[in-house]
Every structure is written in structure tokens, then in C-alpha cells.
């Protein structure tokens, strides 16, 4: 029962409550959106991952070359195709002072793979057969089958290590609290307004994090964020809008660090709907052929990004470059598209392209696609709906023709393409066709180590994905880390695979 009078007193006190005064080594991070939930193993949105990455840690991380680096695990060994030994480093501790133990690691794995948690990430580990503490700081994970992407899967924040002891004792509720071994811990949170983080006194880094305090005002409006950067209210922030360099380029005190990611903008196509023209694979392929990715790059991104493929170009495999939708000239592809539509008996398909209205970039991509597809005969109507409606119509109801979004490419070529098997992914069963051959190939490639055989397999898979045209890749997604050079020194990776823009947050240094 809440005591109303004390709350009213608190409200009055709101007039006198002290906001935080910027201390000497306080950094201010303008966060573009509030988190959508607290549970690090369950929540699948970037806005939440950004915050989780300040507080939690993962066993491994990835560097600019997509290579695995130590995180909470200081070393690891693949003893057999299905067995991995991870050694937890000494000196890592949660913010309450307790050291990170094998029990925490095993407990976190158990929580993620527990069906009750319903974590979307558990499937990326492969099939875990057993977890065992085989040493004071050693954990052995045995899989039922080889799964090449097991280690890279440990580098994503959704595989965070939580304080299992406190969780089991009921002292810590991951669904409403954040407590981890990362550089910062949460001191205050005002919903939709701001967070205040302070350095984790038990953080394993020496003299890290450099900034003892992190203020995080939440500023969703882009222009407001730009204004805040300009007048010094925030020290750093991120933008998705590729025009940010135009908007802030002339400002000498502002630095823009583009971070290439393995993420790319994508098109989801409804292959299973009853009334959609896209139920016919030929119509889907025609649409894929008629999509003009260069036009998207030029008109929407001013040429600052690049065409991308289902297997992200950042991995450098080039596996999908010869697929039908990418090869040849635009005229050749348009010819093929029109021919396919003729064959399908639908030369002027009427379709609706959906996008969440929360991201203006998607709206612009939609308008370019509308024009490009018209050249092949498609009549496209655009629908920009609020995020919640987009999520329900595309992923629950299957009530759409095709829609725009983006995909995280993670840290291994075989991870993102795993989603092309709806039985594995589950989140796209409502619109994605199941193809036995493709599913088998996807399983195979997960077990192949890097090399010629894997490369060939990837190429084969690219061909199949292109023909099925159920999910299309458009252009790479670049994130921009923008900061005030006179107030802060930031360190940004040029390439990032784990949606971890602030991988080096502990080393950010406040200059004022």
C-alpha cells in the first residue's frame, strides 16, 4: 500500500530536489531511446542493449576484425568439435563486491536456455548437452552437435553473465533490475527521462572506468539531440541518420566517428499470406530483381554506405555477390523481373510496403523502393505504422505484404543467415517458408570450420536464399558516434559486429 501523503510530499520536494551537478569527471551520454525492458536475456532491442552493455559483461567480445577477444573469460579452448573449455578471469566482480564465479557462468547459461525465460538467444548457442565446473575458474560446455557459431554467440550482450547466486536467492530480479560486472552500475533511473550510472568500484579494469560518473539523459528527438551536443549539454551520442555529417560537419568541436557494422537494412517478404501476391515465389524474385540498391544508397544515404548481402559484406566473404539479384546491370535485372511477372500471370501486382514510423530512414528507403519497383510494374503503397503495430502485424498476425527493418549481423557469417530457417528462428514462422534443402545447408555450414568448404557452402546458401527471396538485404547500416572533442575523448571501433558501439566505454575520458 502506497502512502499517498509521503508521495505528495515527495512531489513538492520535486521542486527542491537536487539534480546532479556535473562533477569533474562526469560524462554525459545522450541516449536516443529509453530501454524497453530490464531483462538482459530476453529483451531484443538495441535501445536496451546499449544500457545493458554498460552494466553487464559477456564471456567473450569481438574486435574490429571480427576476431574473438577475452571478456569475462580470459582464455578458451575448443577441446573437441563439441567441447569448449572457458577459463574465467581472476578479479572480475559484480557491483556488490562478490567475485564472478563458475556458478554465475553456469547459472546464466541455465537461465538463458530455460524455456520459462523464453530467451530468443538460447538457440544461437546450438544444443547444449551439459555444463560443468571443471576447475576453480573453469567451465566446460558440451554441445550435442558441433556449432561453429557457439563462441561468437557468447560475445553478444544477450548472453550476459548475471549474478546467479543472488538471482537464485531471490535477492536480484533480472526483470526489473540491472546488476552486473561491467564498468558501471545504476544509481538512479527516471523513466523516459534519465539514468545515472556510477563506476563499479569492483570493476576488473585497473583505474577503469576513467570517468567515475555517467549521466544519461534520454533524448529521442534528433534535432533536440543535435542542439544538446551543440550547447554542450551532452558529451556524446549516436545517430542513425546518415546526414549527421552534413548537419554537424561544419562544427569544429564535434567529431563524427562512423562505425561500420555487420548490420544491414532488410526487407521481410510475406511468403505465407493467403492474399498477398508474394505467395508466388516468382513475384518475390521479381521484386528482389527490381530493387535498386544503388538508388537507395544514393538517394537515402547520399552514397555514404554500400550495397549489402544476406551474408554481411563486412565479413569479407563475398559469398553472395554473384546472386541473381545482384549480378548484371539494372536493365538486365529489370528485364528478368518483368519476364517473371509475366510468367506468374501478374504484371502489375498491388502491394503494401510497411515500415515502423519510429525510424524516418525506413520511410525514405520505402519511397525509393516504391519508385524502383514501379519500373518493373509493381504498384506499391507505403504504410508507416507505429512500432507496436508493425511488430504485431508482421510477426504475430502475418498481416502484411512486405516490410522494412534491419538485421544485426553479429560476429560470424553463419549467425544471421541462420534466421533463414523458420524452424530454427521461430520469430519469422508467420511469413517465412521452410525449405528443407536450405535448412540442411544452414545446419551444415554451422558445423564447418572456416575454409574453402565453408566458403563453397556459403555460396550455395546465398543462391538458395536469393531464389527464395523471403528476406532481402539492402544496404549496410552505419552507426555514427558523435562527440564533443573539447569535452570528451572517445574510442570507437571502425567495425563492430555485436551492436556494441560503446565497447570501449571504460576508456572514455572526460576532458572538462
Amino acid at each position, binding site marked *: 500500500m502506497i502512502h499517498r501523503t509521503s508521495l505528495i510530499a515527495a512531489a513538492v520536494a520535486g521542486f527542491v530536489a537536487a539534480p546532479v551537478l556535473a562533477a569533474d569527471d562526469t560524462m554525459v551520454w545522450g541516449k536516443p531511446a529509453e530501454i524497453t525492458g530490464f531483462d538482459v536475456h530476453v529483451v531484443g532491442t538495441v535501445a536496451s542493449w546499449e544500457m545493458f552493455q554498460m552494466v553487464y559483461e559477456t564471456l567473450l567480445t569481438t574486435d574490429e576484425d571480427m576476431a574473438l577477444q577475452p571478456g569475462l573469460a580470459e582464455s578458451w579452448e575448443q577441446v573437441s568439435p563439441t567441447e569448449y573449455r572457458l577459463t574465467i578471469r581472476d578479479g572480475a566482480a559484480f557491483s556488490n563486491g562478490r567475485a564472478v564465479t563458475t556458478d554465475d557462468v553456469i547459472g546464466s547459461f541455465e537461465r538463458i536456455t530455460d524455456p520459462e525465460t523464453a530467451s530468443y538467444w538460447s538457440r544461437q548457442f546450438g544444443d547444449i548437452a551439459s555444463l560443468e565446473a571443471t576447475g576453480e575458474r573453469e567451465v566446460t560446455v558440451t554441445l550435442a552437435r558441433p556449432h561453429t557459431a557457439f563462441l561468437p554467440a557468447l560475445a553478444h550482450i544477450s548472453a550476459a553473465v548475471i549474478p546467479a547466486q543472488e538471482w537464485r536467492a531471490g535477492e536480484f530480479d533480472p526483470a526489473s533490475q540491472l546488476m552486473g560486472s561491467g564498468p558501471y552500475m545504476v544509481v538512479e533511473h527516471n523513466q523516459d527521462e534519465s539514468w545515472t550510472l556510477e563506476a563499479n568500484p569492483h570493476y576488473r579494469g585497473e583505474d577503469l572506468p576513467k570517468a567515475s560518473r555517467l549521466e544519461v539523459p534520454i533524448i529521442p528527438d534528433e534535432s533536440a539531440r543535435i542542439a544538446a551536443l551543440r550547447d554542450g549539454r551532452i558529451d556524446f551520442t549516436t545517430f542513425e541518420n546518415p*546526414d549527421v555529417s552534413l548537419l554537424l560537419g561544419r562544427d569544429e568541436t564535434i567529431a563524427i566517428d562512423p562505425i561500420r557494422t555487420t548490420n544491414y537494412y532488410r526487407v521481410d517478404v510475406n511468403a505465407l499470406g493467403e492474399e498477398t501476391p508474394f505467395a508466388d515465389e516468382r513475384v518475390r524474385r521479381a521484386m528482389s530483381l527490381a530493387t535498386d540498391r544503388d538508388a537507395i544508397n*544514393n*538517394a537515402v544515404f547520399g552514397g555514404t554506405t554500400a550495397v549489402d548481402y544476406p551474408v554481411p559484406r563486412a565479413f569479407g566473404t563475398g559469398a553472395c555477390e554473384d546472386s541473381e539479384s545482384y549480378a548484371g546491370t539494372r536493365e538486365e535485372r529489370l528485364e528478368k523481373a518483368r519476364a517473371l511477372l509475366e510468367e506468374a500471370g501478374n504484371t502489375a501486382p498491388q502491394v503494401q510496403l510497411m515500415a515502423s*514510423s519510429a525510424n524516418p530512414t525506413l520511410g525514405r528507403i520505402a519511397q*525509393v523502393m*516504391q*519508385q524502383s519497383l514501379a519500373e518493373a510494374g509493381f504498384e506499391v503503397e507505403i*504504410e508507416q505504422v*507505429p512500432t507496436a503495430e508493425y511488430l504485431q502485424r508482421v510477426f504475430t498476425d502475418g498481416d502484411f505484404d512486405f516490410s522494412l527493418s534491419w538485421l544485426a549481423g553479429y560476429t560470424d557469417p553463419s549467425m544471421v543467415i541462420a534466421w533463414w530457417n523458420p524452424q530454427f528462428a521461430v520469430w519469422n514462422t508467420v511469413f517465412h517458408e521452410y525449405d528443407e534443402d536450405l535448412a540442411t545447408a544452414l545446419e551444415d555450414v554451422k558445423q564447418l570450420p572456416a575454409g574453402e568448404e565453408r566458403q563453397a557452402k556459403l555460396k550455395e546458401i546465398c543462391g538458395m536464399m536469393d531464389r527464395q527471396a523471403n528476406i532481402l538485404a539492402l544496404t549496410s547500416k552505419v552507426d555514427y558516434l558523435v562527440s564533443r572533442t573539447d569535452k570528451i575523448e572517445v574510442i570507437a571501433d571502425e567495425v563492430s559486429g555485436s551492436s556494441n558501439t560503446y565497447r570501449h566505454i571504460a576508456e572514455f575520458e572526460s576532458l572538462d
Partner: protein
Amino acid sequence: MRLPRDPLSVLGAICLAALVLIGLLGPWLPLGDPTAIGAGPRLGWPSLDHPMGLDELGRAFLPRVVDGIGATFLLSGAAVLITAVLGTILGMAAGYLGGLADDLVARGADVLFAFPALLLGLLVAAVMGPGAVSAVAVISAATLPLFIRVVRSVTLGVAGRGFVVTAEVAGASAWRVMLVHILPNVLGAAVVQLTYALSIGMIIESALSFLGLGVQPPDASLGSLLRQGSPYLTIAPHMVIGAGLVLSLAIMSVNLVGDAIRDALEPLRGRPLT
């Protein structure tokens, strides 16, 4: 009924007529293609080729503004018309029939009125999905309560008048009385409210579009053009300035014309004190 001739009213009327004309004839005017992507450099500033510059996809902005005028007027106009018809019927019924009808209508109007306007709009838009139809619904829902109240209160004033009583005594049905006797007297106030509702409607429509819940691209309304242009205010202000000026002009001319109509219908014969 004497139409006012003062400069402001005349200016307002001319502006309004011009804008409506432009909005109606827009698609046929040789101003360029509002949807042709890449017609010029992205975010290009106004020039002889493109008098209002270009937007972030390289489309000429002038034809888009013209489209926007048409859309804004069409949406608000349609909504206000619906409000007028519904509001007049409901308001008269409430004022004249009284009793249960009055209670239902008046309470219903109260509920809508007490609902924070923009939130009501957001909810309606959320339920119906974005687009022209929901924009019309939102504007209607937001302007209906006040309209009903005004019509109702005028009806109350008229209901007791002599000619109405005479008609009732002569055996006229309630509907006939309302249609033939009350309606003409309500019209004046209704028309005045209509113009104010129109200007409020245009503001609401543009606010909704600004928040992302209005017309769908590549169609444009003045509000959605403002939404498009505002991230680029610092490097390409011509979009916000262009759309903003036109929108303000449109709303202002509606207000001025509304004032003029009100003055004509209820002339004030006062004498200045000084």
C-alpha cells in the same frame, strides 16, 4: 447581412481563395513532379529551377507543398463537414428534445471534451492506423464536442421563441420543427464555429503528421512536410520555412475569414469610447 470590407478581411478572403484554388488545381499545374526522387541534389537550396528547393530525397519541394495544401484542406475540410453535419443534428436534438437525448449527447460531448485533445487524437490514430481516414476521424472527434455545445446552446435559446411554439401548437412533428424553424437560426452560429473548427482542424492534422501519424508518404500534407524537413532545419531550412509559412498563412486566412463571417452575421454597432 453586410459583408465586411476592411483590408484584413479582404486579404484573408483572397488568400484563402488562392490557397484553395492552388490546392484543387495543384496536380494540373506545371510545377514539377512531387514524387520524382533525384530530380536534383539532395537538400538543394532554392534556385530558379527549383523555387522552393529540394528535399532529402532530391525531390522538388514546391510541387510537394502544393500537394500538401490540397491534402491539408481536403482532410480538414472533410472532417469539419462531418463535424458540422453530425454536430448540428446532435446539438439540435439535445437542445430541443431534451430529456434522455440531451443527457446522452451532452454527457458524450463532455467525455470527449474532457479527454486531452492530442491524446484523443493519438488514440484514434492508433486504433485506426495512420492515414487520411484516421486523420479525418481525429479532427472530427476533437472538434465535435465544442460544436455540439454551441449548437445546443443556440437551440436552447431558440426553442422557447414564439414561432416555434406556434408550429408545435399547429401539430408539426419534432423533426419538422427542428429542420424548418430551428435550423435556420442555428446556421449562423454553426457557420462561425465551422470556420474556427477548420483552423483548429488544420492545426491538429499538422500536429498529428508531425508526430508521424498522418498521411502516408509519398503523399504530403503540410504537417508531414514539416516533419520531413525539421531534422534538416540547420542546413536546409527552406523546407520548414516554406511549409511552415504556407501552413500559417492558410490557418490565418481561415481565421480572418471566420472573423469576417461572424462579424457579418452578428454585426456589432458600437461606438468608440474615445
